[in-house]
């Protein structure tokens, strides 16, 4: 299968800190690829560079064959690369439906329309409602986004990412702060989504990672120390020392 995302020798420093260190990673079309690693490993920095929020110091990123290394954020979304945020980043003062509808609007041509009431446009509202029902938030559609619980915020995040009909999703810790029930629901949803999209999943929740991932890459200090099938990673001694061992100890 062809690689949808190719990352070649990516590097990024912040002053004296090396956040991304000569990183090489390929994501195949259609797979769910998890990236794990201890805190400070540079996972969020990696996502930021993939989505265009940060510019790498050196190296290249290819998406669907195109070099997107220097492309601005809004351009990547148009190519089909969507991202969810680790820290909730929504339009809190707008309604839940408005939030998703904006994601739809972003891909429905330009927005230099000044007269028609956008909240009454079926081309915008219908796909938005569809995305909301996929993640199970239909009942909350008309509430202000600020009124939702944390778990529902994560669901809304996902709905917005879906609304832009992406080819690939960059998910930055979608399970963060979710209870066991909500986590299980999120895992089920991601398992469904897996069938239609390519997903890069950054996560700490090892259960979810091993349940969903086709392949796993382990990041430590901005560098890839192992990459392969979940079984191989689990048995990899280096990985165990660096990371999984901590995790097991922590989770008892």
């Amino acid at each position, binding site marked *: 299968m062809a690689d949808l995302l190719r990352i070649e020798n990516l590097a990024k420093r912040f002053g004296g800190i090396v956040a991304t260190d000569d990183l090489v990673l390929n994501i195949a079309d259609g797979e769910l690829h998890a990236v794990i690693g201890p805190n400070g490993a540079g996972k969020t920095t990696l996502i930021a560079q993939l*989505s*265009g*929020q940060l510019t790498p110091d050196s190296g290249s990123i290819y998406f669907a064959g195109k070099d997107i290394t220097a492309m*601005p*954020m*809004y351009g990547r*979304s*148009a190519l089909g690369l*969507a*991202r969810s*945020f680790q820290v909730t*980043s*929504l*339009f*809190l*003062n*707008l*309604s839940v439906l*408005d939030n998703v*509808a*904006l*994601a739809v*609007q*972003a*891909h429905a041509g330009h*927005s*230099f*329309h*000044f*007269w*028609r*009431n*956008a*909240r009454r*446009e079926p081309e*915008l509202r219908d796909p938005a409602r569809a995305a909301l029902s996929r993640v199970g938030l239909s009942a909350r559609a*008309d509430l202000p986004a600020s009124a939702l619980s944390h778990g529902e915020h994560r669901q809304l995040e996902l709905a*917005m990412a879906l609304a*832009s009909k992406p080819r690939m999703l960059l998910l930055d810790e979608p399970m963060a702060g979710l209870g066991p029930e909500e986590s299980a629901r999120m895992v089920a949803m991601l398992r469904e989504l897996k069938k239609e999209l390519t997903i890069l999943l950054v996560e700490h929740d090892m259960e979810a990672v091993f349940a969903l991932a086709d392949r796993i890459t382990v990041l430590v200090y901005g560098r890839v120390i192992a990459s392969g099938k979940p079984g191989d990673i689990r048995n990899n001694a280096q990985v165990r020392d660096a990371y999984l061992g901590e995790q097991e100890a922590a989770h008892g």
Partner: protein
Amino acid sequence: MIRAVNLRTVVGIALLVALILLPVYVEATGSRFLLTLFTRIVILAIAAVSLNFILGYGGMMSFGHAAYLGIGGYAVGILAFEGVSSGFVQWPVALLFSAFFALVTGALSLRTRGVYFIMITLAFAQMTYYIVAGLARYGGDDGLTIQKRSQFIAPINLSNKVQFYYICLALLCASIYLIWRIVNSRFGLALQGARSNDTRMRAIGFPTYRYKLTGFVIAGTLCGLAGALIANHTDFVSPAMMYWTRSGDLIIMVVLGGMGSTFGPLFGAVALLVLEEALSGITEYWQIILGPLLLLVVLFARGGIDGLLGKVRHG
């Protein structure tokens, strides 16, 4: 959001009706002064509507909005001075120059964020103040008297105070309606999204810069219209119209009335100017009261008048 008839809309419409009936009241009581005051209120309400658009809905805190009052006003004043008194020339020139100034300064200012944006808009407006104050031919610091108001075709006669008032009021109603439509359009939602979370907007695929710049130009142009109107109202223009503290007055109006609401700018303009009149009747030093009042509004009544009316509905 549920579209029910709520208190804010009722009060807003009631206020507009009261404004429509004002000249009748003035005829009956003979208080011509009220007509002058409310003409000024209506014109500044248009300016407040334009500022509310970019500030309340777009999140762009422009501290240089008074510049457009000056640009619009001086377009009328300078042309009148040079013998061109046709409104058909003056007003389009006022709008064009305002739009151009907004385009150029907006393009530069919108490259910055937060407090840098505030300061750079402030500085650009102050720049126009100095330019105009330096134009000796047009009165410099002392300002420029306008001998003849903008001429249109009969029966339109701006020197007729009642007629002028109704023209201004009509333009105000048109402005409120126009902005209301724009705010709820795709463009308006894009602007509101950018205000709420600009990074997220760009992440989902909006090139926010161009939308904000367009909004900025729309607001500047509308305020330029207000400038042309105020020049006609006072038959006089001076650099003081653009001094940066006047931009502060506009912001006060918008915040006092309630940012990001349809009738907020109207509430704010009425409230501030009526308050000014009332307070200056009590004491010469009324700003001593207004100053701390502003501080209190910021601390405790952030949603302004519109916010308070909204709270009443929800109990």
